[in-house]
């Protein structure tokens, strides 16, 4: 029996017509087997297919056979495998190839079936779906300026970001593994709140390369309302924790409310009609809220409640679409202009701005007189102007003149100044940290060399001592090297800005001719060396 069945199966798999039965119907003996609903297929679908589609059900049923290697069917499983193999190699022209997945950090080799024509060295086609999530990083300076929070220390925030990075933003895992030594216990909402708020602040305060709307969008995607989340979860929990009695009571109450409401409405209607027929006037009494929506909004639709209780959106990182919309770029106060008036304004070069209503009558002095657009070009902050101008000059951008000083271009220029100012700021901090590192290194080296002289023997400290002597020489060399490097920089600056991607072994110079503190810093450290 089994042999006959498998022969028919082969035919159906290879889409060959059965010699005995021309139709697709299954030979009798297998009928009882296929009549049973196979696993991995819904009842509805199965009833649609019916038992008369043997090839499909057989294939769908296959994983079940694999999962439960039944001794009685073992023979059949093996045959299936052979068949599948033959099918792949000879019909589909496929090969069993080893491949490496660039999406993996380890070098695990797996194999898969691919078309024999595929290039074995080609990149694994699914690797691109392994999208590493970007986890933001921040400098000490940024932390001090933007990220201070009385509940969180910098160390704990660092720890949080490390854990988040390690577990790829999977907050349930993060919350599970989160164990900051000496820290207070944190709920998943605490962690999410801290993480998202830090990201939001970083995005908002860093210069943005794209346009404003994309920035707003990105900030909105990091929206997280902790209180709302907590309330939501509490609500779901209380909803889930209702006893059947409570549920029944609630439903009963709801029906009762509905009934009362209907009665009331009917009563009001009747009264109105009565008054109309008698006196020909409206009752004038406030009618009972005629719309169900109000009721639903107040009591909540019990059906919807049930759906929400399924916990489908418990894990949504964003607590609801309403939050995104309210954060969107459209502010309600903004006057909505019709397309026509926009075109009119564009034609006549008119720009309308909202006027703050003031009590003070407009004076002549307050009036901003006529001006040439180019005379109001944005200016960088005076303290940083030389450095910013230098940086822009390296980018072939004139900071004093525009070819077409339109309003848009002026604001573009302003954005550029802001970005450049941020760059100059960052560099200043880098130089400061650099110097601190240098000082610390020198001190460490000095201490180690003293230790080496006094103790002498220990291999480790001896090693350090050597380093220290080197360090002294290095410090001298570095200071001089810095000077020559600076000269280099001035020349190569522009070039390296254009190809900043090029890796440089030394500190990439680029716009760094901007920094001036380095020389004085090295000089200072050199002095300390001599002392």
């Amino acid at each position, binding site marked *: 029996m089994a042999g006959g069945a498998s022969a028919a199966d082969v035919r159906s798999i290879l889409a060959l017509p059965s010699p005995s039965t021309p139709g697709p119907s299954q030979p009798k003996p297998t009928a009882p087997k296929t009549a049973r609903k196979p696993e991995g297929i819904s009842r509805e679908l199965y009833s649609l297919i019916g038992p008369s589609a043997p090839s499909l059900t057989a294939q769908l049923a296959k994983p079940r056979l694999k999962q439960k290697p039944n001794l009685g069917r073992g023979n059949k499983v093996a045959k299936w495998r052979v068949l599948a193999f033959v099918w792949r190699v000879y019909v589909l022209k496929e090969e069993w190839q080893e491949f490496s997945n660039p999406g993996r950090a380890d070098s695990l080799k797996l194999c898969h079936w691919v078309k024999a024509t595929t290039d074995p060295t080609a990149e694994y086609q699914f690797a691109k779906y392994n999208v590493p999530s970007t986890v933001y990083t921040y400098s000490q300076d940024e932390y001090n300026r933007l990220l201070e929070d009385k509940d969180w220390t910098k160390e704990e925030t660092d720890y949080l970001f490390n854990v988040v990075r390690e577990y790829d933003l999977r907050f349930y895992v993060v919350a599970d593994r989160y164990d900051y030594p000496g820290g207070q216990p944190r709920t998943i909402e605490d962690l999410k709140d801290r993480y998202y708020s830090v990201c939001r602040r970083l995005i908002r305060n860093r210069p*943005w390369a794209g346009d404003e709307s994309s920035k707003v969008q990105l900030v909105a995607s990091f929206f997280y309302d902790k209180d709302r989340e907590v309330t939501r979860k509490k609500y779901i929990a209380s909803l889930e924790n209702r006893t059947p009695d409570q549920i029944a009571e609630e439903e009963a109450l709801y029906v009762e409310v509905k009934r009362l409401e209907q009665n009331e409405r009917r009563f009001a209607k009747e009264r109105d009609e009565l008054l109309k027929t008698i006196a020909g006037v409206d009752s004038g009494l406030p009618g009972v809220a005629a719309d169900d929506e109000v009721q639903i909004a107040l009591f909540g639709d019990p059906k919807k409640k049930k759906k929400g209780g399924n916990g489908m959106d418990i894990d949504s990182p964003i607590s609801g679409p309403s939050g995104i919309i309210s954060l969107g770029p459209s502010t309600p106060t903004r006057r909505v202009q019709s397309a026509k008036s926009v075109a009119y304004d564009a034609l006549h070069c008119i720009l309308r701005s909202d006027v703050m209503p003031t009590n003070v009558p*407009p004076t002549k002095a307050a009036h901003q007189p*006529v001006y040439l*657009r180019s005379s109001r070009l944005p200016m960088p902050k005076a303290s940083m102007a030389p450095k910013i101008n230098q940086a822009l000059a390296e*980018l072939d951008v004139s900071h004093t003149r525009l070819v077409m000083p*339109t309003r848009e271009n002026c604001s573009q220029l302003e954005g*550029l100044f802001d970005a450049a100012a941020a760059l100059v700021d960052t560099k200043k901090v880098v130089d400061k940290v650099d110097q*601190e*590192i240098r000082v610390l290194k020198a001190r460490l080296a000095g201490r180690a060399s003293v230790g080496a002289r006094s103790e002498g023997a220990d291999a480790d400290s001896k090693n350090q001592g050597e380093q220290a002597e080197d360090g002294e020489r290095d410090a001298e060399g570095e200071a001089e090297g810095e000077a020559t490097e600076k000269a280099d920089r001035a020349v190569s600056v522009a070039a390296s800005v254009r190809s900043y991607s090029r890796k440089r072994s030394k500190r990439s110079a680029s716009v760094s001719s901007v920094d001036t503190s380095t020389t004085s810093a090295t000089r200072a450290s050199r002095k300390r060396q001599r002392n």
Partner: protein
Amino acid sequence: MSNSDRVRVRGVTIHRPIIYGNTAEVIPLEERQSSSNTAHTHRWTVAVRSAVSAPDSDIVGGADDISYFIKRVSFKLHDTYPNPNRNIDKPPYEVTETGWGEFEIQIRIVFISDCGEKPITFYHHLKLHPWTVDGSGEAENPPPEVALKAGPVHSWQYDEIVFNDPFQSFLNLLTAHPPTPLPKAKRRPVPFHTANPASFADTKAGIPEFSQVMIQEEAERLENARKQVIAEQEKWRTVLIEKENELARLKKEMAEA
């Protein structure tokens, strides 16, 4: 004029695009010798015009009449010129002269009295000698024969005259004369500007014209520069964070040692 017209329309800013600048060409030698002032090598025209060029015209800009809001344009030439203050009360607002040297021309635009605005003053550097690649013009000027062949030199600056909260009457006047929009596409060479050295290639191609392409092109230039600066900053921020980590490590070492 009714009283309601003397009300400022709050929250409205309206501008008119203009260009100012000059063209200059070398005077042929024979003409020079016949003229009274043989030292003058160039003939130049300094002008203030609307930004859009009229089709098929051989001048830069000037398609629209801008006399509806301008009362007078004064050009203050170098003191060596006879009566250096030239007041032009009617369009075209331009002065044509001969000379041998470049200098700063002070331009002063007086608006019609109805607008109640003070005159504005700005400067234009009279450009006689052909542009050089770096735009400095410091390089050696070519001999007159070569310059003559190269054709006229153009030096134009686009700008916008911005009126804030104009009087209703003045606003009406302005909206009655909408400026012709700049052509969307580039039809003629781009006027050279030192802030855009890339336009140098066009300097020899004939009469330039301002177009919207130039606005977009500049916006892109600034945008790209900003992106570069930001990319640079991202890089530096990574460096900074690394360095800070190193510093923290060193501090720890220090504390342990």
